């Protein structure tokens, strides 16, 4: 099993509902975010193209954050979800330095924190909060190892990319373009 997310950049309108949903669902401290929206404008005036992306931890297959962690607090859970166990974390920030996506931060309580793919919801068969709440349904969550899952079909049938593939982390968030 390999959990992944496909996000359709053509459907995203940049409303940040996913950001708020995550903050509420996961009790993210004020001023912090586990997911965020990026707007990229590219081209030569007047021929400009805008891409909107909802970003978060990529739950990489080859996670530098898991390797950098001196205590094993950062680890792979079921389906390749990358998690932090606060009771094992010393707050050294090695994982924050090691993430090419800057997806992590130090929680005000001292431990490293980031997106969990809402593992508590996924274990109950629900989608992550951001996926459920998106008004344009631009996100699809599922198992990439199952060829019949919606996400596998989407990634196969559409053009997609991952962020900073050259960093060699094998990210699991696909952006449909």
């Amino acid at each position: 099993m390999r959990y992944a997310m496909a996000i359709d950049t053509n459907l995203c309108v940049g409303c940040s509902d996913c950001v708020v949903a995550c903050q509420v669902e996961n009790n993210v401290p004020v001023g912090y975010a586990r997911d965020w929206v990026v707007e990229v404008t590219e081209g030569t005036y007047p021929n400009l193209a805008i891409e909107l992306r909802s970003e978060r931890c990529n739950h990489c297959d080859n996670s530098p954050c898991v390797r950098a962690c001196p205590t094993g607090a950062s680890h792979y859970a079921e389906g390749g979800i990358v998690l932090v166990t606060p009771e094992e974390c010393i707050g050294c920030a090695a994982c924050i330095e090691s993430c090419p996506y800057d997806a992590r931060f130090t929680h005000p309580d001292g431990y490293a924190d980031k997106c969990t793919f809402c593992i508590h919801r996924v274990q109950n068969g629900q989608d992550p909060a951001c996926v459920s709440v998106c008004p344009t349904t631009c996100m699809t969550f599922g198992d990439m190892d199952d060829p019949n899952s919606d996400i596998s079909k989407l990634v196969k049938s559409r053009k997609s990319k991952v962020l900073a593939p050259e960093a060699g982390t094998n990210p699991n968030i696909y952006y449909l373009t």
Partner: protein
Amino acid sequence: MKEELIISGRMNPHVDPILNTWGWEIAFYLFVGGISAGLLFFSALYVIRKKEDIYPAAVKLAPLFVPIFLVLGLGALFLDLHHKLYFWRLYTTVRLESPMSWGAWTLMIITPLSIVWAASFVKEIWPKFNWWNIKLLNDIEKIVIKNRVSIAWPLIVLAVVLGIYTGILLSAFNARPLWNTSILGPLFLTSGLSTAAALIVWLSKSKIEREIFTKIDLLLIGIELFLITHLIMGFLAGGQVQVESAQIFLGGAFTTYFWVFIVMLGLIVPAVLEVMELYGFHIPAFAPSMLVIAGGIIFRFLMIEAGQITRYLY
């Protein structure tokens, strides 16, 4: 002109707009780790080569600083931890993939060893000192003095590991292109040895010792300049993020700091002063030494700051 404009809604403290999660604590820790590694290396080396009496400052006096340096370094590392109560978790596992982990273990072994090592020289510096007449301490001292050479071997290996570790701690981070170069390990090791040699020159009262350590330091400065050239050339031959990393020192934000404080004042000027000294000009020993040590400190601070600016995305 083709442009790319990126606006991110993320504003996490110490991550945005530029990463500054690691501050002076880590830079200081890397510096004292490096200089301690160098001091232990020279002390152990000349014990093995039986030159204690020719190089008294290097062998006997300088190692007395090491336990102080290491404890201060560990203190700084501890300050940097945000989840301090769980500090002990570092010592419940060994994770070889994580430099932070094997570095913590190296320090765990080398710190007590350096205390014992330094303690065995205390009486040679202060002959009247007698360990408060505690028999156990005097007995331990006798054992250590008798087995100095056998302790020197593991010590010299651990010193090299510690010196290289101060570089590898950074170079293991693929996410920060400026750090992600295998040259950083040897470069920080050389820099640690050089700052140690400079401190020994400063401490020494013997002309022969000063001269030999001045020569050692000159050699090390030469190697450092060579490694720095390679560092920059390596970046310029790399991909876009690597080229951008080199640019930080070639016209970018840290250009002046790098060339003026590290290359000129930290390496070239002290090297020139040391050469003049060797040719008989009277240069006060503290001048080149202080420059080399200050250069070493600034170098660590700069690498920590600059490395966190370099990144893959935005």
